[in-house]
């Protein structure tokens, strides 16, 4: 039972990060109707630079700010430089794959293949509550950041005119232009925002299970993809719930069956959701056209 509580707590802490990262997929989906297969590779690249800055300055926070800035810049560059050329969903995926290969190769060449240790700003020992190990201060920090960010993004989209324009530009680009919405700028903004959130999520995830190596993004992307699909790609709330679900699942599978089995668990869940409820468990207004 103690073990179950511990795994549950860890799962929630991991799930929050999955949710945050899945949110970055949702953001790009919402602003461009593209699933960004390069999201994880972009975030991992930003994290490498962030850790380099942390090493240089000795400050975790300087690294964190760099992660967000570099993430956003990468989002801008990839959207303007590469994804603009996407003519249809298929070529969008292919362009993103090309981006993944370039980024992974570059980080591999510059940083080497080995996994890189990552610092934590707070203790990452679980606090013992009534004899049961639960969350660590670092986990609490991660949860606080994720909750704040999710709430902020929700406010942006639901309450501000900028968010309204971003949504309109995604749903109906041509009509939005007729109404005076600068659609191209909204797309770029969506990418910047999403990539910055993604980079932050990965930086938060690195000290945990993930670790940082050039290919660290692959399993993360698949988990986040599963999260986004479970929650429905249009739904930020769905991403949060899906993230917790996947986090807990992965934690329990890892704890009871071993870390090697986790990808199978994610695959099974993903296949189940895609086959049974392809619009996501929390489908929004418009059924996904699968």
């Amino acid at each position, binding site marked *: 039972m103690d073990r179950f509580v511990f795994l549950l707590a860890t799962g929630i802490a991991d799930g929050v990060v999955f949710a945050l990262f899945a949110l970055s997929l949702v953001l790009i989906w919402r602003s461009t109707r*593209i*699933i960004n*297969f390069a999201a994880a590779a972009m975030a991992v690249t930003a994290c490498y630079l962030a850790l380099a800055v942390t090493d240089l300055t000795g400050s975790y926070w300087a690294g964190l700010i760099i992660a967000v800035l570099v993430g956003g810049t990468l989002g801008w560059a990839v959207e303007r430089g*590469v994804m603009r*050329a996407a*003519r*249809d*969903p*298929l*070529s*969008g*995926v*292919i*362009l993103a*794959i*090309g*981006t*993944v*290969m*370039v*980024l*992974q*190769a*570059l980080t*591999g*060449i*510059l940083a*080497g*293949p080995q996994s890189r240790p990552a610092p934590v700003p707070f203790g990452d020992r679980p606090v013992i509550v009534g004899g049961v190990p639960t969350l660590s201060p670092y986990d609490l920090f991660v949860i606080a950041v994720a909750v704040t960010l999710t709430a902020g993004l929700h406010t942006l989209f639901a309450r501000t005119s900028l968010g309204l324009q971003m949504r309109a530009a995604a749903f109906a680009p041509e009509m939005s232009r007729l109404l005076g919405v600068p659609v191209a700028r909204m797309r770029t903004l969506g990418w910047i925002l999403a990539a910055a959130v993604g980079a932050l999520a990965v930086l938060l995830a690195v000290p945990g299970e993930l670790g940082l190596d050039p*290919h660290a993004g*692959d*399993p993360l*992307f*698949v988990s986040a*993809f*599963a999260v986004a*699909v479970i929650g429905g790609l249009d739904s930020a709330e769905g991403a949060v719930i899906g993230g917790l679900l996947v986090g807990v699942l992965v934690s329990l599978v890892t704890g009871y069956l071993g870390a*090697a*089995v*986790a*990808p*199978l668990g*994610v*695959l099974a869940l*993903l*296949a189940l959701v*895609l*086959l049974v409820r*392809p619009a996501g468990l929390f489908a929004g207004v418009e059924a996904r*056209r*699968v």
Partner: protein
Amino acid sequence: MNQNPRRIVLLTVGGLVVALAGTFLLDPYRNYLLALVAAHLCAIAGLSLLIGRTGQLSLGHAALMAAGGYGYVAGVKLGDGAVPDGLQPVLGLIVAVVTASVVGLLLGLAGARLHGPYLAGLTLAVVLALPALTSQIPALGGDQGLMVPFRSVPQALSSLIALEQWQAWIALTVVAVVLGVLATVDAGASGIRMRAVRDDEVAAALAGIRPGRIKVQAFVLSAAAAGAGGGVLCFVDSGVRPGGYGVTLSLLLVVGVVVGGTGRLAGAAIGAALVVLLPWLIGLGTSGLDLPAEAAQRLDGNLAVLVFGLLLIGLTVAAPTGALGLLTRAGASRKRSAPSIPTTSKD
């Protein structure tokens, strides 16, 4: 491009004979590379047809190749003692194709309900789960994979050709069969139905075509081709190891498809050659540079992936028809400049 079956058979057999003869011009290592190209060509041609004709983007073809590899091992074990030694590889290849087809059927059934990006995500998850699967099922041998007994050149030929050349012959024969089958299907009624489904599922359904079924059929066909490729790889390497069939290979197969021009079987050959030979050439180049071991290790593999990534982006942006498309377009524009020849070429 309407090709009748007779023409396809002639082309494949003719091409095979020329290729087999060509192996005499190559040294053993280059014959080995040729066998690798042929193995990759099986998978790339199948994937190219899948993407080009039905619009289904699979990032899981590395896993299907692996299925072929494991199938090959199973087939050889099955035949051990039951069939003559010389026929064991044939049995292995058959079981390889069947295994990959079955896995492909499962994936295809799931995929038929999904559009591009979702299918891509699901198949990517499959590839990533492959090491987990092999580590969980003891019969698959874990990270070490499985080995098959080494197969030397048959007695009758052993004085004539080296082992690598023999392997190249088998690989070329398999790829000829695969290409012949793919081209025949593509030229026939199924090819038309696949295109109809890709262009407009609803319209196709109204015309009495069942889009789901067509997509599954295409996926199975493509999986079978990948399985044949995986079987050949297993034959050439005398074994199968899950580490070789990761995301990177899956992405390389997509690169091969795009380089050759999506949906073009002849282009797939260019793609396969590039995917196999470029890393080798780059390796030759960097080893000539006399780099420190650490730097060489970092460049190894990564440099090729970098080039492939740039190529993928560049081609998708600039030349959606691939390298072969570029060549034919150059040819067509040269023709067009001669005013008397009307342009009839389409697609």
